[in-house]
Each structure stands twice: as C-alpha cells, then as structure tokens.
C-alpha cells in the first residue's frame, strides 16, 4: 500500500541528514506505528509521504502511484492529520469541513452520513457552528480528524494523533483505526505513547537520527532485544 524506497532528506545544504536512506513496505490492512525520540525524523518522513516535503533521493508510492509524479491521484487516496493542526481560524467548523469535502469531491449523502457519524463520535457536533478560533487544541485536533475521515482514505496518515485528545476520543480514534484496518485500509502513524503502539500496531518501526534501527511485529522486536519485557525497554535500549 505504502512503499518507501531509499528515501533521504537533508537540511541546511546537506549538513543535517534528517532522514537517511530509509525503506518501508506497508501492506493493506495494516496498522503501522512509527516510533522515535524527538527530532529523529518522524515528521519529516510523514511530510514526504503526504507531499509537503520533497525527498532528496528515493521514491514514495501509494498503491503503486508515485507521490511526486502523480500527486493528485496519490493525494486523493490519503488523508493526513498533522501534529499541530493549524487550520483556518476565521472559518466555522462546519465551513471548514465542507471545504475539505468539496476538495475531495465527496457526494452529498456520503458527506452527511460521515459527518453525522464522526461529529457524534468525537463529540463536537455542538461546536461546529462556532469559529475555529474559539476551539481548544483538542477540539481542533478532532475537527481535523473528522475532516480527514470524510474521504474514506485508503491510507490514513497521522502525526502524533493522541496528543491533546481526551481519553474517550483517544479510545474512539483507536477504534476507528482498527475498523479501517478490518476494511482493508492502511493506517500509518507516529507516536510517543509506546503503550498505544504496543497494543494497537501490527508492525512497528523505530527511527533514530534519520535511520530505521528496528522494524517488525512486537514479537520480532522482542526477539532482538536483551530486556524483552516491554516496548519501553526495547525503545530505550535501541535509541540510547
């Protein structure tokens, strides 16, 4: 579903290698967790997948479509939730949702059905008539989540999705992610919350200083580590 091949990205004229020759192959129906300490290259990688940053080398393909050669087709298959949801403050929530719906060309009935469902699920139905400027961080996060789920993406990409969400919404989001996988969709997300990754993910990759230092199912990761108790131990050991 998502194929990343030998992708690199440097900043400051090549002095800082944010992402260093990474390759990933993520299958349909899989929840993939992307772990790493601060500044490891998680957001840079995600931005390259969704078309916000151009890689220096390598290719990224979504369902066989090269993100940088046919961006429109690639983008219509994905939805992206950034770590810091900067959205149009001066629009009302509902205006923003309709705007996103229009950009994906989502039909009337479909849109109404999706909005009814997700606005209820994330408990923001009463707030969508307000200006986004009045939202808390968590509410903006929920609004962006709702907008990202409108187009029924084949590949759902989330950057630190649990930050700022209340426990109930966080639980609901995990359910949504699970259901998507059951339908054969793919979820790719970065997180600091190791517990979430441990419980939710089919496979996990750990990135450190731009390089992927470990990848596999929880069991596979355990088999490589000396202290095999929890993902936290494995993570600490690997990223030392």
């Amino acid at each position: 579903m998502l194929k990343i091949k030998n992708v690199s990205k440097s900043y400051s004229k090549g002095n800082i290698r944010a992402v260093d020759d990474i390759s990933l192959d993520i299958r349909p129906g899989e929840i993939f967790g992307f772990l790493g300490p601060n500044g490891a290259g998680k957001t840079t990688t995600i931005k390259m997948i969704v078309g916000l940053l151009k890689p220096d080398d390598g290719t990224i393909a979504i369902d066989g479509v090269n993100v940088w050669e046919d961006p429109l087709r690639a983008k219509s298959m994905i939805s992206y939730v950034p770590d810091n949801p900067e959205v149009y403050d001066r629009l009302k929530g509902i205006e923003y949702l309709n705007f996103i719906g229009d950009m994906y060309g989502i039909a009337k009935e479909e849109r109404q059905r999706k909005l009814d469902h997700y606005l209820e699920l994330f408990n923001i139905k009463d707030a969508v008539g307000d200006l986004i400027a009045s939202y808390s961080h968590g509410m903006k996060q929920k609004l962006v989540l709702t907008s990202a789920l409108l187009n029924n993406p084949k590949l759902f990409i989330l950057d630190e999705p649990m930050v700022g969400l209340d426990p109930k919404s966080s639980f609901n989001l995990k359910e949504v992610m699970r259901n998507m996988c059951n339908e054969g969709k793919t979820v790719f997300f970065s997180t600091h919350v190791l517990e979430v990754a441990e419980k939710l993910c089919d496979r996990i990759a750990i990135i450190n200083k731009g390089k992927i230092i470990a990848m596999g199912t929880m069991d596979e990761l355990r088999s490589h580590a000396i202290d095999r108790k929890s993902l936290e131990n494995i993570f600490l050991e690997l990223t030392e």
Partner: protein
Amino acid sequence: MDKIISLIKTDFNTTYGLSSIAYSFKSKKNRWQIIVFGLAILSLLPTYFMIVKGLGAMYTVYSQIGQKSMFLLSGFLSSQILVFVFGLLYVMSKYYFSNDMGHLVPLPIKPSYIIGSKFVTLMISEYLTSLPIILPFIIIYGLKGGEGLLYWIYSLILIGFLPVIPLVLASILIMIFMKYTNIGGKKDLIRTISAVIFVAAMIYFQLKMQTIAQKSLMEGDNFLINLITDSNLLVKKLGMVFPPSQWATLSLVNSSNFSGLVSLLAFLLVAAISFTIMIILSESLFLDGLIGNIEMSASKGRARRINSRDLSRETRPYLALARKEIIMLVKTPVYLLNAVGGVIMIPIILIMSSVVSEDQSLRTVLEALSPNSGFLILGLAGFIVALGMLNSIGTTTFSREGKSLWIQRSLPIKVSDQIIGRLLSALFIQILGIIALLGSLAFIVRLGLLDLLLIIFLGLLGSIPMTQLGMLIDILRPMLDWDNPQKAMKQNLNVLIGMGLGTLYLGGIGFLTVRAVGKVNFYLIYSLLILVFVLSTIILFNILGKLIKKQFEILE
C-alpha cells in the same frame, strides 16, 4: 526599565523579522528576489520624482504670494494626517489583533509597558509613511530658501518626533473605541463597520473644515492687506486644522530667531505630554478592550445546532475555494479593512472629497469628457484595473494561508482550481469596488447603460491579469511565517512589488491606449484592449499553473 527595553527589542525583532531576514539573506535563491524588488522600487520612482517636481512648482507659487511658509505647512499637515490615518489601522492590529498578546498579558508586566513598547515599533513603521512625504518639502524649502544650520538641526528633530502626536491620537481613539465596542459575539463585525463609518466621517469633517477655513480666509475684508503684511497668515489660519503642524512649520520658518525655538519647544512639549497621557490612559483602557479577543472560546457550545442542510452542501472545488477565500477576507478584520475596505473606500473618498469640498474641477473634467464617453470609459476601466492590484488580494493570496498552507498542499486540488478559485474571490471584491465607484460617481455624472456595461466588462477583464500578476509574485515568495495577519498583508513586500510591476503593465497599456486615441475608433481600442487582457490572462494562467505546481512541491 530592563523590562521595557527587552519588550521593545523582542517586538522589534518579531515585527521586522530581523533574525529571520538575516537568516534568509544567506541563501542564494533570495538574490534574484532582491533584483525583482529593486526593479519594483525603481518603477515607482518616476512617479515619485514627478510629484517632487510638482512640489518644486508649488513652492514657487507660494513664494510668489509671499506665503512660502504655507509650503512647509502642507508637508507637515499631509504627512501627519497620513500617519494618523495609517496609525488607526496599525494600532488596531498591533495592540489588539497580534497573537503575541496571548503570551504577553499573563506575564507580570503593566499594560502601559506593553503599549509603550508596541508604540515604539509602530513609530518605526510610521517613518516609512512620513519620511517620503515630509523630506521633499523640507529639502526643497531649505535649499531654495538657502536656510542656515539651525533650520536643518530643527528639521532633524521635527522629523524624528513627527509621528508621535498623530500616533498618540490614533492610539487613544482606538483604545477607547475597542473598550466600548467590546460587546457580544458579533464584535468583529460591529468594530469593522464602525471603523469604516468612523474613517469616512473623519475624512468628511477634515474636508469640511478645510473648506470652511479657506472660505473664512477669503471672506475677510482685509485679506489681501493681511496677506502682504503677515507672511505666515495662511499658516496661522489653515494650521488650525491641526495645530502641531503649525508649530512645526513656524519653528522652521523662524529657525533663525527666538520664536522658532519657542515653537519647536511647544511641539516637543505637546508630544511628550500627549505620550504621557496615552501611557496613563492605557492602564485603564487597554486590557478592557483586549480581553474579549482572547476569551473568544466563551461562546463554545452555545452555538446553534447545525441543520442537516449545512452538513451536506456540495460545491465545485474552485467555488468552494473562492468561498473560503471570501469568508477569510471578510471575517479577518485586517483583511477586511485593507483589501475590501480599500477597494470600496478609495473611489468613494476620491469622488466624495470633490463633492464635499465643492471643488468643481473633477465635475468639470468629467462633464467635458462625457460627450465623448470613450475617454471616460477608458479612464474608469483603467481605474478599476488599478484597483485590481491595489486591493492586494492577488499579491497576498498564498501568504494569507500562512501556517495553514499544508491544507492546500496535502489536498488533491487541481492547479487550475487553485487559480480560478482565487481569481474569483478577487473578482468578487472588485465587484464591490465597482459598485462603490459607479455608485458615488452617479452624484457627479450620468452614464448610459452601454457605457456602464463596457466599464464593468473592461474593468473586470483587466483585473484578471492584474490579480494573476500578483499571485505570480506571491507564489514565488509567499510570506507564510506570521503570527498576525497584519504581516501577511501590510508588511508583505509582495504588495509593493506587485504595485511596481502592475504600474509597469498598466502604464504600458495606458501609454499605448493614449497614443491610439484620436487615431483610431474607440471600439477598435476596446477590442484591442480585450485582446490584450485575454492574451495576458492565458499567458499568466499557464505560467502560474507551472509555478504553483513547482512551488507547492518545494515550499517548506
């Protein structure tokens, strides 16, 4: 004291982005931008020199009637009034709509410290307004009159303190205004409408007062005798409109004797006193007007339920984009005042000023032209096309996205939808301007329906390449890293570059049109203009398409 210096330093740095400019100048790709910027400035220079040359002639006229001091007064008066008018806008967005307020208010600092530091940065912005106006007046007067050393020293002091009084006035007015309009959920709308009415009323009274002053001056029996005996008569009479500009003028005119020093001290003293009053008032006024802006979230949950029709409105992408742009333009006070307000206010002010001041010249010109409506049509259409750049909608369309640009870049939006949607929003605002222009023009001259349609058609068609030109500049160097929408529009060099290139484009077409008038039929000229506009639109559309695609890939 340390606190206030640190506040000023930080505010100065964030306002003018000194750290980030220093950072960006290191990169090679910025070099060509400096060249384009230089060209844009150069293209504005001829107009500026023409104005300065006209000022030289004005000096001669005043000095012939023995009232050359009036020349200086015109300079002080016009620069201080402009500082005041711009000050109203600057103060509003700097004191009340900048995002850093959310960080500053919880800190243990007095409101007067915040206002004081913001005031200092505003002073610097205001020099950009006042210097180009006042300098030619002072230099022409000083050189032609062979003034002494004291004249130049006084000038320097006066120039330095020139923005203080108008800016203090603007600050106090805005603080009172914000305190008492801080009501209800629709306060942005209330404020914007009252602001527009307020500025219109100000200009009206200003013009009215000038007319009254002029009339009373002319009506006196001894006017001519007084004119000869008192070489500062006009300054004393007309300077009453704004006394500080009178003191400034008198201090320069009398720089060689003691009364000049007295006037200078009066000017400085009033500046200092008014600044102190503003600082004292800010303690009781400022926070009351501000707090409501931060506590916006109070309305949360109380909003009306959304009906299902709102949930399922389906629109074509370019229309949805246009609608989003228009909502943002209308709902963000800074954009509303500058882009929408500008397009509506400029024509109304131009025409109303002639109606109110009973100045017959515009009417005479228009009436002389109207039998041969071709000139009028071309002139008015040209004016609308010029508004197409002056509204700064094209030149800031991507900059206004700011940190939300990721939305546009990660959505599957066709480049053509990007261009058409943004163009439509600009044209919508242009239509408001056209209504204002033709509506206020109806007070002076009657136009036939066919003429009106031609003006609207040519004006709108010409606005398309003008907006595209602006978009072209903006996509090449969008200003995305801002915390206050003011920066995206008022402190965006793209606006200035756009005006420069727009002047070249429209000036070129205007020049050719003027040469063609009289030699060929007007209808041929219209047809040729339509052809030029359509061709420019197509060419610019293609270039824009490629650039947007490329820039959306590499912008970070």
